[in-house]
């Protein structure tokens, strides 16, 4: 698929933009702070209903404006298919409203899957070096891109978790004030345990299946990015899902087994959970452990190795989504400036075959020549196509 047209109203720095795009490579060039990333961020928003840069929606809306609108026309690879028109209206503090082919949908998340993107950004380094939360987000976003119904599974889980945490917190307060008698709140904890186990098992099973699917893709991509003529050959990149239930639980994507294991783990930890007022087991506390050879990447990998691994994770996403039938839109946001020449070249080689590649760069020379295509100079709200 490719984005054939992007329109923005009051999104970030742009009061209004109409931007036609072509398949193939398009590079946005301009000095810092001119709004290059805002353009690709908008496309990413349609794909994930979130920004890769901020967790809240407020910064996405232009100062003084009430709401922002992002609209895109998406052409399928198959030219005979009719292009889809997706539109989302972002109003901070309220639910987003979305429209698909001009008709409103009940829930914004129904548009997920219409646009699929894989986005490379300087922030990707935190996939390797950052907290487990970054890696969970990576898995969950890919899960939703692959099968949009998981957006619902994920939000159901988050809702159960919120309710259960609220209960644990009040139970903890009650237990402390009545000197350990448990308090009246505990009578419903079993029920929330059951709901958390069911929703958690669903999410966990999906993540495990996903990790199995991308494991060989990541290993292969890592060899391609890090492999150079220089010896010794790069170590093997490995992925292991680490569950908060501890190493004794066998992790197979069997939902019933996982739900039982979660229930068991919760009953063992009940006292701790009440003391601390939070849920201590479940997919929200899991991690994806990345290793290079025998060593964990986090804390041991060099800067260069970390970058190669981060790129490998994104390339694996691309390969996985591509295998579903149509190429996702590939976005390279300011990444070339972060990479050395050999990694730049290899990344360019690997992504060059994608149906549409959108690149942002402050300096045009950072972009490898191989990624030759259209160029748009971005200067404030002025977008100028360079012949």
């Amino acid at each position, binding site marked *: 698929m490719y984005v054939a047209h992007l329109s923005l109203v009051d999104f970030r720095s742009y009061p209004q933009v109409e931007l036609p795009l072509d398949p193939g490579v398009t590079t946005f060039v301009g000095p810092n702070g001119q709004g290059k990333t805002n353009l690709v961020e908008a496309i990413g928003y349609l794909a994930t209903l979130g920004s890769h840069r901020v967790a809240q929606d407020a910064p996405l809306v232009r100062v003084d404006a009430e709401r922002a609108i992002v609209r895109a026309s998406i052409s399928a690879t198959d030219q005979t298919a009719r292009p889809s028109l997706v539109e989302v209206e972002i109003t901070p503090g309220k639910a987003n409203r979305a429209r698909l082919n001009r008709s409103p949908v009940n829930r914004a998340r129904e548009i997920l899957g219409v646009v699929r993107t894989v986005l490379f950004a300087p922030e990707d380094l935190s996939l390797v070096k950052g907290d487990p939360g970054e890696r969970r987000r990576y898995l969950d976003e890919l899960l939703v891109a692959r099968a949009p*119904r998981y957006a619902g599974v994920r939000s159901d889980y988050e809702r*159960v978790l919120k*309710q259960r945490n*609220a*209960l644990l917190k009040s139970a903890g307060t009650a237990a402390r004030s009545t000197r350990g008698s448990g308090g009246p709140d505990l009578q419903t904890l079993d*029920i*929330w345990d*059951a*709901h958390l186990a069911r929703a958690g098992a669903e999410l966990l099973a999906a993540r495990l299946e996903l990790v199995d699917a991308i494991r060989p893709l990541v290993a292969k991509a890592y060899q391609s990015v890090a492999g150079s003529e220089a010896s010794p050959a790069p170590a093997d990149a490995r992925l292991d899902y680490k569950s908060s239930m501890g190493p004794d639980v066998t992790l197979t994507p069997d939902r019933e087994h996982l739900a039982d294991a979660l229930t068991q783990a919760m009953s063992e930890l009940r006292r701790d959970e009440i003391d601390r007022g939070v849920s201590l087991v479940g997919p929200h506390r899991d991690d994806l452990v990345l290793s290079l050879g025998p060593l964990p990447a986090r804390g041991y990998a060099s800067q260069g190795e970390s970058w190669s691994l981060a790129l490998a994770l994104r390339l694996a996403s691309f390969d996985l989504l591509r295998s579903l039938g149509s190429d996702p839109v590939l976005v390279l946001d300011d990444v070339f400036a972060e990479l050395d020449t050999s990694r730049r070249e290899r990344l360019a080689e690997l992504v060059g075959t994608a149906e549409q590649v959108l690149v942002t760069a402050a300096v045009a020379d950072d972009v490898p020549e191989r990624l030759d295509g259209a160029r748009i100079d971005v200067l404030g709200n002025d977008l100028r196509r360079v012949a």
Partner: protein
Amino acid sequence: MYEGVVQGLIDELGRLPGVGPKSAQRIAFHILAADPDDVHRLATALTEVKEKIRFCTVCGNVAEAEQCQICRDPRRDPAIVCVVEESKDVVAIERTREFRGRYHVLGGAISPIEGIGPDELRVKELMTRIADGTITELIIATDPNLEGEATATYLARLVQPMGLRVTRLASGLPVGGDLEYADEVTLGRAFEGRRQLDV
């Protein structure tokens, strides 16, 4: 900001559910322009509803007397009780004209985030009603969302040992709808709750 009283009215209206600041302003100016008699009737209706309406001592539904109309109606089957979250759910079920039993209004659903546990709901009253043995079936008709399901599970576990039949309203496809438009969760539930066709 408008002058004192007008702004006061807008603020009050803005606190109503589903009314935002803009709608509140529109309603306020509508009231200002309206016939004084109409406004008076509205004001009386508002005060009266607070003064006259009470909650039924048996089921918790809104009532003008000690007991609501349904609890006073001898034709209604006292052996079957349908448990709902709010009075407005009673009205919704009454519209079907299918159900001839009685109701029990919980006054909400279990939601720790909002600080609502079983003690904040009319659960104790329900247990008292069950205790005298006239009720043989409990139909749980809480909302089919997370909080409603949690409430249903809680009630089922609580009531099961007392030896009465506990049922839950079915979830699934809307009547007259198209299968292709159903979301995955609903469709999944419809599969779970499928029935044998009796020919």
